């Protein structure tokens, strides 16, 4: 698969201060690639290098086959960018601003209109009078209104209300369906989980993990809480990958790593009254890699307040 973005040992120092170090990654054409990390991890530095706004200290980046520093003009005809807090000119209204940016990209006047309607953006209001969320809508409209094959977005849905976040995710899905590549930097983890095919986690300037969201979630532990009709026999949960975290007779709390089939088979032999299985979301995984302490993250994985919880009767 051709690569939309290739990072090879990409490094940036600000004097003695770390920007990013030795980034190695490929973003495939047509995929939605999430770039996760907290403030200061190096996300924006990476994006600024991808856009040719700053140079790398060492290493290289190729974007759509082009060097972002030396081929910036050619590259910018093929990508659209949305910054985390775009410095739009406050005295222009959204319509004028979007027409101007559209004209620079060779788009006809009003190319933004249908996107503004979808996001319920009033284009007649001066940008300085817009709320944070509405300013962000201007940015979302601006990035999607063209036909560029690569979209680079830094915290794109910050400030959007849940309905608009859903609309934003729909726009991302449409872009992917059209074969466009989306590079999405975020710390909105549920959004990344829902939007992205693959995720890279950056920690203190270094990439610590790149994987598909499915693989990232699937490879990790699940928390299983059981309510039994009668206490389980001794050694009932002595199965590969299963650890008993607590057992108070009829209430059992397990941690399961990897394949859950063996456990499900064993539950058929027990009098299970209730079961709750919590799968880790990207947020848990992000904290795992960011904190760098497996034990700490496993505690997180095992907390009962997980967003994806399956309740129901176990097979008998």
């Amino acid at each position: 698969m051709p690569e939309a973005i290739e990072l090879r040992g990409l490094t940036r120092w600000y004097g003695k201060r770390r920007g990013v170090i030795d980034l190695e990654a490929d973003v495939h054409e047509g995929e939605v690639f999430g770039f996760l990390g907290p403030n200061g991890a190096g996300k924006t530095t990476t994006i600024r290098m991808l856009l040719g706004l700053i140079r790398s200290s060492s290493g290289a980046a190729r974007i759509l086959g082009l060097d972002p520093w030396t081929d910036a003009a050619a590259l910018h005809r093929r990508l659209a960018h949305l910054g985390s807090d775009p410095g739009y000119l406050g005295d222009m209204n959204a319509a004028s601003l979007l027409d101007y940016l559209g004209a620079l990209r060779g788009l006809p006047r009003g190319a933004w209109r249908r996107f503004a309607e979808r996001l319920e953006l009033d284009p007649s209001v001066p940008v300085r009078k817009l709320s944070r969320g509405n300013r962000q809508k201007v940015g979302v409209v601006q990035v999607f209104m063209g036909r560029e094959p690569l979209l680079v977005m830094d915290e794109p849905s910050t400030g959007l209300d849940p309905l608009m976040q859903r609309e934003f995710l729909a726009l991302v899905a449409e872009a992917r369906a059209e074969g466009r590549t989306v590079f999405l930097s975020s710390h909105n983890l549920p959004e990344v989980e829902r939007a992205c095919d693959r995720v890279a986690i950056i920690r203190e300037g270094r990439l610590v993990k790149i994987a598909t969201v499915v693989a990232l979630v699937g490879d990790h532990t699940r928390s299983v809480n059981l309510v039994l009709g009668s206490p389980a026999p001794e050694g009932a949960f002595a199965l590969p990958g299963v650890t008993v975290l607590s057992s108070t007779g009829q209430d059992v709390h397990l941690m399961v790593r990897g394949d859950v089939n063996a456990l499900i088979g064993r539950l058929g032999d027990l009098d299970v009254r209730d079961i709750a299985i919590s799968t880790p979301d990207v947020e848990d995984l992000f904290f795992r890699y960011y904190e760098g302490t497996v034990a700490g993250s496993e505690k997180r994985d095992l907390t009962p307040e997980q967003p994806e919880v399956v309740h129901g009767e176990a097979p008998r």
Partner: protein
Amino acid sequence: MIGLAFRLELHRSRVIAVGLAIVVLLYGGLIAALYPILLANTAMIEDYMKLFPKEIMAGFGMTGSLADPGIFFTTYIGSFLWPVVAAIAAIVLATRPSAADADRGWADVVLATPLTRSRHLGAGILGQVVVLAALAFVTVGGVLGVGALVGAGFDTGRFLAAGGVLWLFGCGMAGVTSLAAVITLSRGAAAAVTAGLLIAMYLLNIVAQVQPDLAWLGGLSAFRYAGVGALIDRGTVDWVGVGVFAVVAVAGWAASLVLFRRRDLLP
């Protein structure tokens, strides 16, 4: 594409341009309205002016009689109002495409489009050229217009030529400011450089006039070349001054364009 950016640049400059135009128009008009009174009381005013150190007066371009239109214009406009107005315009306009836009994030927005850095900054430079030309024209126009109303008898052609020198002086300041802004990416630092240079050159010009053995220092001061008294009164063009301002302006802008294309843009 540079046309689009240039039109936006003019749009963004309208407040500062109109504000400064009103100032120069009102001030120039007022001064011109007073010219006939000054002419009628030349002897008395010259006696009064003798009370002040002649070096300071020379620093303001008062090297002859205020009754001479050239000395009059240089004293009140060329060496006083215009450097201040041009410096304000230069600082606001010449720091905007680089330092200010990088700081506010607008540079990130437009420079991620097919608009190149050179075209973005080039549009800004064109904006400076046009706005400074308009301000110089309005400055001279105000004096000429009110002068005509009060029968001052100003020579339109020579005053317009003086406006050209004022414009070049402003362009020189804008070129230097633009370069400082690109180097520092700080509007405050670039403003300090421009204001500092202006004050230093003003003082240099005074020192050069006070100390005959340091007269050569005057050649380093823009104020040496900014006087348009001889041009208005005798029709003599200071081509060295014109050349210095033009070279400084073009060199400053050209260096800005080269450096801006090569440097990291950090907010």
